[in-house]
């Protein structure tokens, strides 16, 4: 046996002296819990970029699945904004406003993208990380 393994075994002997059966139970339960929640991880990879969040004055009014084609109408201070989902993409079909900026943005589908209809206070955003939003310490 090499010296390296001896050191490892000595380390484990020390460590295991510090652990009670309750500790092993906690470790096992946590590993089980993590294994049980791992399926969520798959969902997140799929779910990220699969939703569009529609806000009016910053308040969420719709969460649209990009999976199903649909149209919603949001009534803001300037009139009706029509939002269309088709083929995994979303766009603003009609919205009041002289410049029609959000309509000219066309389709969006990537996480982090957003459509903003300023006159009507409506935003459509696809949540997800296009980078880090905040660092907590």
């Amino acid at each position, binding site marked *: 046996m090499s010296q390296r393994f001896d050191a490892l075994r000595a380390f484990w002997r020390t*460590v295991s002296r*510090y*652990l*009670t*059966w*309750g*500790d092993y*139970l*906690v*470790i096992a339960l*946590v*590993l089980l*819990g*993590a*294994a049980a*929640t*791992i399926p*969520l*991880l798959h*969902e*997140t990879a799929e*779910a*990220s970029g699969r939703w569009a969040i529609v806000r009016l004055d910053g308040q*969420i009014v719709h969460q649209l699945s990009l999976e199903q084609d649909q149209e919603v109408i949001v009534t803001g201070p300037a009139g009706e904004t029509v939002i269309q989902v088709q083929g995994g993409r979303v766009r603003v079909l009609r919205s009041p406003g002289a410049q029609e900026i959000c309509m000219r943005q066309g389709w969006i589908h990537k996480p982090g993208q957003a459509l903003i209809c300023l006159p009507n206070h409506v935003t459509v955003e696809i*949540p*997800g990380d296009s980078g*880090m939003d*905040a*660092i*907590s*310490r």
Partner: protein
Amino acid sequence: MTPYTRSTLPEAWLLKRILFAALLALGIVLYVLEGFFPPLVPVPGAKLGLSNILVLFTMLFLGYSAGISLAIARSILGSFIAGTLLAPGALLSLAGGLVSALVVAVSLKKLHPPLGLVGISILGAIAHNVTQLVVAYVLFVQISGLFYYLPFMLILGLISGLITGLIAVYLFERLGRELGLAYNSDVGAL
């Protein structure tokens, strides 16, 4: 009013406060230093939580309430020094530290015979991580996708709790031997 003399000054009282102040200073230093290091894993909020050893130590040697005060003061003063006091992260850290300290206190009191300090450390670290997730969800981002972090948070809590717990047990054993401070589950008596 009688002046404090050596005979009137309750020494245990003084010793407790001096020890608390020293532990708090150490906790703040660990907290701030830890923030300097780049994260080992690319998950926001992942850190070792070395200052939680201090919380555990304080609870064992000075009592539960002292440990909880230490956790609160360490978060507030630590983020004050690190310059993140009013940033959202500081609030997360404070909530996480507080709930983690409560979990550690309760499990020290109720579960200590079957659970060792390592297991309690793991529970505390997980409580810290999960609380951060919940507070972040409630206060900042109402996106259920946040909870997809949960398995990461559990595994990271396990690892950091394991490491800090092992350090704690080793440290307390050595301290007990060198200083004659015997720690036992009979907390609150210094």
